[in-house]
């Protein structure tokens, strides 16, 4: 297991190095931000002088070498817009995004999974019908629309919850639900499908035939086997949530990394975008490793050599 982990982590480093290189070249190929940073009535010479001061006029390869050298020292450079270390900006925003992602994860695990299970046990019942409609709406309605509807209903209409900014649980509910809705719908459908498949197997019929209580049949026998695809999906979904819920953060003025990324792209703030992408990639890679490890814990047949 340890050897497996080490191998996986080494592979992860290679993935991250690749990501770092790709994001660098894609970003720089879109042009540098000198023209939008400097005052709009700047002359050609003034723009050129600014470009030189920022080092944008160096050959791309030279810029890449200095960027890669910085990376090896754990330095992704200073934000062009804020003149502060880009990594600090990313880390500053990460807790807000985590808060939102964990709330959405809670919705996934505590609402979506049980709902999916119940709807699979009683297919075509009223509960199943409601769950399926929710899943359909959640997957097809744009996040932007759901967010605005929640704002209009619970914020403007009923006045129960604040509609913008961060600060305590009350502020978390609307953006958390908006973000969780899409993922929850996905997990709900997946749980239902996975459970339906497992419920039809012979060993479950055996378990029921030998007189086990229905709850034990479902929890100990069915759910245990249905878990694997759900865990994979939840893991990947959580990675997506952590990588910044761009639309949700924008609607609710939530100070997370999604908003930082959007502003970074608009401003061509290279180090900030590189920082966000690298952070996201790292999270994804780690979650993948974690999902693999969880597999082994859930299914005794899976063993890593």
């Amino acid at each position, binding site marked *: 297991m340890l050897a497996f982990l080490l191998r996986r982590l080494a592979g992860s480093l290679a993935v991250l190095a690749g990501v770092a290189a790709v994001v660098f070249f894609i970003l720089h190929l*879109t042009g540098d931000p000198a*023209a939008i940073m*400097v*005052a*709009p*009535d700047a002359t050609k010479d003034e723009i050129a002088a*600014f470009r030189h001061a920022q080092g944008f006029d160096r050959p791309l390869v030279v810029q890449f070498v200095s960027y890669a050298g910085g990376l090896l020292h754990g330095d992704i450079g200073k934000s062009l817009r804020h003149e502060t270390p880009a990594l600090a900006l990313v880390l500053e925003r990460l807790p807000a995004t985590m808060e939102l992602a964990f709330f959405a994860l809670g919705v996934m695990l505590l609402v979506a999974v049980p709902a999916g299970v119940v709807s699979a046990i009683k297919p075509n019942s009223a509960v199943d019908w409601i769950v399926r409609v929710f899943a359909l709406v959640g997957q097809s309605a744009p996040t932007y629309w759901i967010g605005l509807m929640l704002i209009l209903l619970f914020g403007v209409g009923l006045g129960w919850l604040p509609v913008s900014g961060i600060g305590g649980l009350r502020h978390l509910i609307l953006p958390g639900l908006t973000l969780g809705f899409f993922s929850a719908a996905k997990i709900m459908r997946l749980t239902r499908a996975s459970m339906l498949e497992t419920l039809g197997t012979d060993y479950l019929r055996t378990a029921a035939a030998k007189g086990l209580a229905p709850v034990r049949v479902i929890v100990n026998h069915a759910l245990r086997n249905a878990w694997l695809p759900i865990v994979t999906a939840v893991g990947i979904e959580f990675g997506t949530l952590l990588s910044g819920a761009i639309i949700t953060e*924008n609607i609710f*003025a939530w100070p997370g990394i999604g908003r930082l990324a959007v502003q970074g792209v608009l*401003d061509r703030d290279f180090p900030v975008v590189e920082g966000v992408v690298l952070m996201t990639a790292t999270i994804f890679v780690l979650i993948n490793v974690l999902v693999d490890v969880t597999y082994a814990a859930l299914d005794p047949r899976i063993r890593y050599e």
Partner: protein
Amino acid sequence: MRFRPLALAATLLVSLTATPLRAADFSVTISQGVDVDTLSPLRTTNTPTFNVVGQIYEQLGYPDGPGKMVPQLATSWKRLGPNLFEFKLRKNVKFSNGDPMTSDDVRFSVEKIKDPAYRSTQGPYVREIVKIETPDPYTVRFTTATPQALFPGTRQRLYIVDAKYWRAHDNAYLETNPIGTGPYVIKSWHKDESVELDVNPNYWGPQPAVKHVVFKPIPDAASRVAALRTNETDIITNVPPQYVSTLVSGRTTDMASVKSVRILYIAFNTLQPGPQQNKLVRQALNYALDVPSIIKNVLGGRAYPVPSVIPTNFFGFDPHAAAYTHDVAKSKSLLAKAGYPDGKGIDLVLQSPNGRYNRDKEICEAVAGQLALVGVHVTVKTNEWTNYTTEIAKKQVGPMFMLGWGITNYDADGVVTGILTSDAPNSAWVNPEFDKTVFAARAELDTRKRQALYAKAQAIAHEDAPWLFLFQFEDLYAVSKRISWQPRGDESIDVKLIKPR
């Protein structure tokens, strides 16, 4: 009488919440679309950032309408020669850390912007100043390379920083720890969340009514409107026209609007080959356009037609300037004269930003629709902003492109030399006579002669038609009914003028 604890509690609660706001508590929240990018006033060129640092820092003076300057840290200014300008500074002004404000601070601020190592984006703001003298602590003299009609240092924002404080700290520290002479001091900055300011108890001017101000950025326009309706904020900027009726009829909300300094136009790139190089075609397309109809149907009436290249509320605008009117017959005859009967053979791309200006893409589509009525085929292409501006500066965008231009000094100079003269970064038109006229105006010290030169420039531009002439925006703000505040056309917000209603 029986004791009724519930009723008593309720009465207490009501009386507590109904207590009139004490002056010492008066707090206001302002929501713009973006957070500040820095708290250094010498690096940014970003209006939302100026709106925050402008509460902490002050300028020598600021423009307040055509030919009008409001004194701030300078009490008076005079011209000592065509190239030499003198400012007398206000005495007994202190920075919020107690340092006195003197001429050395003014010199330092200009030099810091000019210092390549500081990488300020404000270089063009002070480009004319070639020499700074400080004969005494309250006198500053600027020398410019060429004669200037406008006072240097007032053409654009120039905020004065504390030289002693700045020399003692590194740049990164100064990005987040502002010390100014203004009516407010920094309390906290949580990025993308809020900037909070407290009143400066030692401010040299009258104490403002607002004691505490929060700048809380909300990027999405619909959410800004919702936040105002739920009383989470008191002033919101850039209200889309479709929300106006909801906000006007709101119990706690109201609209505030003002004619913007920003004009919107569609330029012809006459440096690229194509029918737009023909003056007659450019004139014809102007006659084909029905600007009032676009304003009414696309912007809900929230804009003002501008007949010329100079905004109507700027020094230099000629109210008698010739204007294009909607005249389809004339447009068609000009097209025929130019060799394109019924517009046949004209197929132009209209480059548009997407979301940078209020309904920019929709305006371009309306323009394309109107030009189709005279037979001219126009395709609208949208562009990502950063790339767009970079390419415009390289003069690569065309054959037609939309751009907005806002300059806060209410003077024609900042408009024509930014977007029209052949050396201007955003110009794609060459007319030596126009260049000669506006450069003469820049150096002309006699106001009446200068006005006449701009009138001439407008006549040249009308004849040669470098643009499709469109309009000036109306800036839309929405405000809470608990405050009283008047917006300004230059998009700046002066918190010290906000009062409780």
